[in-house]
């Protein structure tokens, strides 16, 4: 043990936080990309509604989001009934439940940078690709994805960092089960409650350093050429 105050439980919280953020980011990249593409390209009247729904977690107290997810995923909720029917039980107070909550919570942080990147490419590049015999899927993978790469990197960094920093949603639907749902932010809260300030300092300082480094990387990349 390098740090005497750093317990195995704290290491478990760090590992769990990393696992949660990584899983959530991976899912968000897959789920968020089509949403971002649709929002960037559609002329549908539903664009405003969908855009607002995606952005809701930006302004909503995490406890509100967590509360509704808890109700929906609970034994009486529609999602809970479905997962019970599937035979996997209910999701609250499990790791998968945390992942679901985090996906909703971090959705705008992934969708918006990707959507902006898609919009910046412009219609002309897609038209040029079409006149060069590329079908829409081909164009997406050979023109759109490479040109939107910086947007994807920003989205992944923000999605990951934002998930690492979540607290309210976790508390509502995950509770505080060591090695299952007890992430770093909750662990800090526990330490402070127990007046274990040294332990709290180590985790909190680590979070501070992590967040700063992430943002430093993000802002230093601005202005870097899109395709390099």
């Amino acid at each position, binding site marked *: 043990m390098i740090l005497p105050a750093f317990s195995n439980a704290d290491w478990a919280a760090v590992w769990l936080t990393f696992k949660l953020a990584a899983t959530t980011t991976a899912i968000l990249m897959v789920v968020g990309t089509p949403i971002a593409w649709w929002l960037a390209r559609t002329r549908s009247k539903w664009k405003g509604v969908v855009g607002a729904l995606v952005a809701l977690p930006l302004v909503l107290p995490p406890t509100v989001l967590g509360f509704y997810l808890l109700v929906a995923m609970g034994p009486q909720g529609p999602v809970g009934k479905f997962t019970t029917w599937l035979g996997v039980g209910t999701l609250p107070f499990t790791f998968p439940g945390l992942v679901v909550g985090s996906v909703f919570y971090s959705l705008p942080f992934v969708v918006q940078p990707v959507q902006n990147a898609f919009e910046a490419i412009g219609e002309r590049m897609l*038209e040029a690709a*079409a*006149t*060069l*015999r*590329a079908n829409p899927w081909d164009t997406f993978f050979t023109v759109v994805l490479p*040109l939107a790469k910086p947007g994807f990197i920003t989205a992944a960094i923000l999605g990951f960092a934002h998930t690492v920093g979540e607290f309210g949603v976790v508390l509502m639907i995950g509770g505080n089960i060591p090695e299952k749902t007890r992430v770093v932010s909750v662990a800090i809260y526990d330490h402070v409650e127990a007046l274990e300030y040294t332990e709290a300092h180590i985790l909190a300082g680590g979070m501070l350093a992590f967040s700063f480094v992430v943002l430093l990387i993000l802002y230093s990349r601005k202005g870097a050429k899109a395709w390099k």
Partner: protein
Amino acid sequence: MEVNAPMAVTAPVERRIAARFRVRWPGFVLDVDLDLPGRGVTALFGHSGSGKTTLLRCIAGLQRGDEACLRFGDETWDDQQAGVFVPTHKRPIGYVFQEASLFPHLSVASNLAFGQKRVVAAERRVSLEAAVALLGIGHLLERMPETLSGGERQRVGIARALLTSPRLLLMDEPLAALDLKRKNEILPYLERLHDELDIPVLYVSHSPDEVARLADHVVLLDQGRVVAQGGLVETLARLDLPTAFTEDAGVVIESVVGEHDEHYHLTRLDFPGGNVLVARRPEAVGHRLRFRVHARDVSLATARAEGSSITNLLPATVVEVAPADTLAHVLVRLDAGGTPLVARIARRSCDQLGVVAGCRMWAQIKTVALLG
């Protein structure tokens, strides 16, 4: 079979383009029904807002018409009523945008390969070497688009379109975004394209000089409608076009370099019905050269002028007299032994000289504008 039948030498089948489109936007209607030749360069000519780019985009499938019917030879690319629409990526077209629209994340070589590798090998008729040589871009292949000048970028854009071996090349004002110097840098390449490749071209332009220099056939568009169409020489010599086109009235004459006069440093250009002398040209005898004669540079005389400094005099017959863009002037269409000429003269002079259809006049040409 041992005996090989001799290869039948036939000209490639001309695929005419039948295009009927109706596109409605607030404040704009494009309504055209065209039958265009499947050979040579056809200019879609008109002012901005005339609908020429919209028409080209409809032909490419980049835009849908409210009513649409498009046939290329015996293929149907668009037929609203029959529910047929061939998407752009399945049409054998090449498209050159106003701005080259190269992919910024790909090198010049990869941009060129983008379209070429998506065409099945058996249908590739334009080789990389040929396209690169035609557009003179061999030294640019390793570069990234952002490091190219506007003219270089546009040449790469044209080569990229050619490398899909299109059966129809669509060009949307490929020179409009360039300054005069870059234009003059690219025009010779476009002329080579015309001379060396047998691909029909639809060329959108609002520049009379570009049209006069490159086109064989011209479609004049005004406010979404076709005003006139036909061979370049005949169409430009028509007098019944809207004022928008007659302000800059004139004719284009196809000539051949006949002789050089080294003493006076002149060149004689021959055409059916006569010849003109111009300042010494670098082209060899026999070279084809187009020139424009603006109506305002042609005056008329009843007799061959003696003691005049104007050297270019042509006997011609008056075909038609029509109103010009101002009340003070008239436009006179003449036939100089098969070559049309248009003169813009004062209405007063017209009356005094008694210019009417059928009378013989001398056309005095002050200047000719050489194209190329």
